[in-house]
């Protein structure tokens, strides 16, 4: 389990992370979404001790971060940080020598999966291959906690699928995973929880199904004038276009739909919303950015 409580990080006069509180239960995959500069990477840095938070607390399985935490924590950075002059095999040797739980057979299996040649120098690898190597370094110990910053960046669609499958497998085996990605489809497929950051703060978080349920929209068409629907219990936002009204039902779509029917709507339907819709709603700031 990853528990983040009131995490705050300020760089001079920029509040990079603003009181982030987030809990990722054991065995769950949490997707951290946000626009560039939203504070995702800084949050990760604070989690891993790369940056000192000004306030807040981070706990992994109930304990604060210590060097020993990294025996069961794997991290994939936003940009692979490899030694261009070392071979793929030498990178894995670093892990073998420094991680008691290194699983050599699994690492070899991963090399084959990603079609990486152990003799090739990291500097000669493509961007996608470098990402794959960074991923192998992180997961070759079969960590119980994984933190991944854009883990599929630079990979082709086939390899992206492989990475997602690996993450899903890890989560199925009980690993707790926190990953960020700009590719919402990846999060949608792999994550069961989502947190969306804006301006350093988490503006939406929760189980993906719950969030989807809460975000469902009810669309109703009236032959006559549209009645006052804003007063309906559960309605948080109303958009009208001609004789059609769309209301955000805040998790109460069936009840709101029934109420709209009772108010004389000739057609009522409940619309599911995609994660992308949720994300765009959450980061929407009226077009000021």
């Amino acid at each position, binding site marked *: 389990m990853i528990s983040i409580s009131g995490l705050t990080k300020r760089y001079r006069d920029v509040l990079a992370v603003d009181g982030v509180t987030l809990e990722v239960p054991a065995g769950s995959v949490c997707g951290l979404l946000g626009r560039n500069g939203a504070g995702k990477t800084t949050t990760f840095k604070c989690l891993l001790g790369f940056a000192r938070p000004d306030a807040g607390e981070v706990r992994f399985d109930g304990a604060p971060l210590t060097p*020993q*935490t990294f025996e069961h924590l794997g991290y994939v950075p936003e940009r692979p940080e490899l030694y261009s002059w070392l071979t793929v095999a*030498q990178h894995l040797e*670093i892990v073998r020598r420094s991680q008691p739980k290194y699983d050599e057979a699994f690492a070899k299996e991963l090399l084959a999966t990603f079609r990486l040649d152990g003799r090739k120098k990291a500097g000669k690898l493509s961007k996608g291959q470098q990402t794959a190597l960074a991923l192998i370094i992180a997961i070759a110990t079969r960590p119980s906690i994984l933190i991944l910053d854009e883990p599929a960046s630079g990979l082709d669609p086939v390899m992206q699928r492989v990475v997602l499958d690996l993450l899903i497998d890890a989560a199925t085996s009980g690993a707790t995973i926190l990953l960020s990605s700009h590719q919402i489809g990846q999060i949608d497929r792999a994550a069961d929880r989502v947190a969306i950051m804006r301006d350093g703060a988490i503006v939406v978080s929760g189980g993906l199904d719950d969030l989807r349920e809460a975000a469902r929209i009810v669309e109703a068409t009236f032959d006559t004038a549209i009645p006052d629907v804003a007063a309906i219990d559960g309605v948080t936002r109303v958009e009208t276009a001609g004789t059609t009204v769309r209301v955000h039902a805040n998790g109460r779509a069936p009840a709101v739909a029934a109420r709209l029917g009772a108010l004389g709507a000739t057609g009522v339907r409940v619309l599911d919303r995609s994660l992308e819709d949720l994300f765009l709603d959450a980061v929407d700031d009226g077009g000021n950015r």
Partner: protein
Amino acid sequence: MEYVEILRARRVLFWYGLVLLVQVLITAATVFFGHPSVHRGNSTAHFSSIVVAALFGGAIVATFVGAGLNAESGRTAIVWTRPKARDAIAWRYIAVDVVTILIGYALMLVTVVAVTAIIGILDQFTYDVAQSARFLALGVGAALMWYALISLVAARLPGRGGLIAGLSWAAFIVIIAVREAPFPLPLHALIYALNYIDPLAYIGATGTDQPLLPLAQPVRIAMVYAIAIVALAGSVRLWSTREA
């Protein structure tokens, strides 16, 4: 994690050793083909001058490995995610570097002895084991101090270790070169003070033990090691507590 530094050191020592070997082979070839560039004379010199001159071997190696820890500033995802305390990782890097510098020093010493033997002037040196041992301690200490100062400054400026290591040569040579220049008093005092953090200033005139600093040799030996240890402790502290 010191595995990376071992690989880095191995690479440095390979190329450094190769250059020294070429130097020996060129000297041998020159003598073999009858064109020795050095002629025997009647003058003698202390063998300790060779011992202390090998400092430059250690300094050359120190220049290449001195920025090793600093180079890891761009690889925190690998280095800082190991289940070891950061300062323990740093000290292990330093241990590898110190051994590398000692090897570099020894290789230079062997090379100079080989070259002087090949050109036939080795018997013109006078040998004093105690004096040579003192100069060895001083030379090794000065090389380590050089390394430690590079590490300390590089720890303050992540990503610029190579530049700092290269500039250290110019800085240390200039500091002792201008120490007697007729600068105004405050500047002169500053330059004089800077001599105390210049490893070359602790060596003195080679072979004759005439110090550039008004300190007895045992004091200078103690100081180069003390400065090296303090500088290394500082660089470890800076490296392990900085933010990525």
